[in-house]
């Protein structure tokens, strides 16, 4: 069986082609391509601009994906698209594209929950059977465990997502959004040494990031890192050498702020994941979502899991960051259990909880 997956819930437009051979041999990723809408430094991506980007690129990407996969339209069994959650306008453009393909080719549609897509792709790539899942991205922060046909949310953010916190701090510092603001924060954080005090907000298995963002933004303003001309300081010596004042106080660098922000929010994520592991009695952790690419987060999670006698599974940017193949993978699993999304129901929604999906393909 072959599925084509279309993803465009945020600023990434992804198209992937997945094959599940009939003889139960391992699934094959036939193609997985992505085009990202990159906004200028200091700005986030707006829904209308992102939707315009997706509309402009979707036909090109679908053609290229089929070509790379060496698959004819006739061989495709179903068209999987992201039903939600995500930004309204970008989701709509991709849903319209999916409907168009469905009518054009006469293929059935499968609406997929974005979060479940991430989890299923992570499970497929790493081979983790029943892990605690930490799903961290620009729009989502959840600790998830599977139990009786649902991916249940054990803990989540009470306000903004961890990736949103990092991205918005990148905006404050006017760091480039290319390839991703979080990636550039990670690179800058590698040069940081000084840990500044930031709020640490964990409530049971939930956490909160908005106060931390305010605090680190205020520090950036205090030390003048939020100015228009500050952007080019981050890379040269000025950006990474601390200034020692006569009165003994040390002026942190923008790299130190990135470092401190990462150390603090990642410690919170590892803490709530550990709590969920202790609660459920699981030893495996799977990290998915865009922030999951961060090597420092993977390292910290690895230390925690090792001390609990377990291990951590993570994937690289091809599968961590939003992509079309994960939608094809989760969609195909649902398709095989008989799920179809009729044309008149092929809507999309900005709010679609992970635990709303009945996971019929697992025991």
């Amino acid at each position: 069986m072959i599925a084509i997956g279309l993803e465009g819930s945020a600023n990434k437009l992804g198209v992937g082609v997945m094959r599940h051979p009939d003889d139960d041999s391992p699934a094959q990723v036939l193609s997985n391509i992505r085009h990202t809408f990159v906004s200028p430094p200091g700005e986030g991506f707006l829904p209308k601009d992102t939707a315009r980007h997706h509309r402009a690129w979707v036909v090109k990407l679908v053609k290229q994906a089929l070509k790379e996969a060496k698959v004819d339209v006739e061989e495709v069994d179903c068209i999987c698209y992201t039903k939600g959650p995500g930004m309204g306008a970008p989701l709509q453009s991709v849903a319209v594209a999916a409907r168009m393909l469905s009518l054009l080719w006469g293929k059935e549609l499968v609406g997929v929950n974005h979060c479940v897509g991430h989890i299923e792709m992570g499970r497929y790539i790493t081979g983790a059977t029943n892990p605690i899942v930490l799903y961290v991205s620009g729009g989502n922060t959840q600790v998830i465990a599977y139990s009786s046909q649902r991916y249940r949310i054990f803990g989540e953010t009470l306000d903004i997502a961890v990736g949103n916190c990092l991205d918005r701090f990148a905006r404050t510092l006017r760091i480039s959004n290319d390839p991703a603001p979080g990636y550039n924060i990670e690179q800058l954080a590698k040069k940081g040494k000084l840990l500044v005090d930031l709020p640490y907000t964990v409530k049971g298995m939930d956490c909160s990031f908005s106060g931390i963002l305010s605090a680190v933004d205020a520090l950036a303003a205090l030390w003048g890192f939020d100015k228009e001309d500050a952007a080019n300081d981050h890379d040269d010596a000025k950006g990474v050498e601390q200034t020692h004042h006569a009165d003994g106080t040390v002026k942190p660098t923008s790299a130190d702020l990135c470092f401190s922000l990462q150390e603090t929010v990642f410690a919170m994520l590892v803490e709530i994941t550990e709590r969920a592991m202790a609660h459920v009695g699981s030893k495996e952790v799977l990290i998915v979502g865009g922030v999951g690419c961060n090597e420092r987060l993977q390292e910290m999670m690895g230390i925690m899991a090792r001390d609990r006698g377990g291990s951590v599974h993570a994937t690289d940017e091809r599968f961590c960051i939003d992509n079309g193949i994960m939608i094809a993978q989760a969609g195909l699993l649902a398709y095989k259990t008989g799920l179809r999304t009729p044309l008149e129901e092929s809507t999309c929604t900005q709010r679609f909880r992970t635990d709303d999906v009945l996971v019929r393909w697992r025991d």
Partner: protein
Amino acid sequence: MESAHIPPLPSIFMHTNPSPTLIAQGAEAHLYKTSFLTPSTPAALKIRPSKPYRHPILDRRLSRQRILHEARCLVKLMREGVLVPGVLALDWEGSNNNNNENDAGNQQTGGAWLLMEWIEGPSVRLVLEKWEVWMKRRLQLLQPLESGSPKRTEPLKCVEEQEEEERVRDLMRKIGYAVGSMHKAGVIHGDLTTSNIILRKNAIKDRENNNSERLDDITIADSVTAVGDEELQAMDGEIVLIDFGLAGQSTQEEDRAVDLYVLERAFGSAHPRTEGYFGALLQAYRESFKGAPNVLRKLEEVRMRGRKRSMVG
């Protein structure tokens, strides 16, 4: 978890005789039973092992903050006359840590610890679990009688039931009063479950009934076979709140209401048979301090709202 790494004890507890025994292990802390000053004085030792994944400065800050926080809440409650474990000693740095920077690899030894008074007695969770088993058994015994001669056994059953209800209500009232006193003192527990509420035998009664069976020795299996009057004593005693690891100081109605909501859910999920008695707990809470009625009004809101908002992608 056999392969899990259990950090060594802080050095001053390494040579005690008998050595501390591990009772519970959570994500955050390890709880040991040990002794204080004399081998016959039991004490609870809570260790917050340092977390090697965290930046050492952040780790020290959090361990210190949390252990001091917990101790301050306990001391405050003690002063206000609320029954909680007394604080005996603590070390927020961990004992092996002589601020030696070269010793960074050794920081894992120990960790911050808190030594508390040992509270003897079963948790309310255990008491209620036993009671639920016992009730089920009782009802099964009554069933055949009931169908045989309904008119005669009905008044008998009513008396039984009334006694039972009164015992559970009394326990619930005591819990409600204890939670109320804690809130009155300006402390929020943060993790109110029936496992964190201990039913301690009154000291005087304990001496009187010295040769009677100890409460915590009665297992569930025992209570199934021995459906006798000694079970009636199982709900006597005083309520002691434990585990203030997630506690905080607040007098806000919202925080207090969330505390009650968490407790209500804990009762609902772990002890479904006691659900009808939760009103007695809230009634006692209402009478325990002046601001309580407002908290209960807030509780209505919290219930309506639930915990999770719908997520925005």
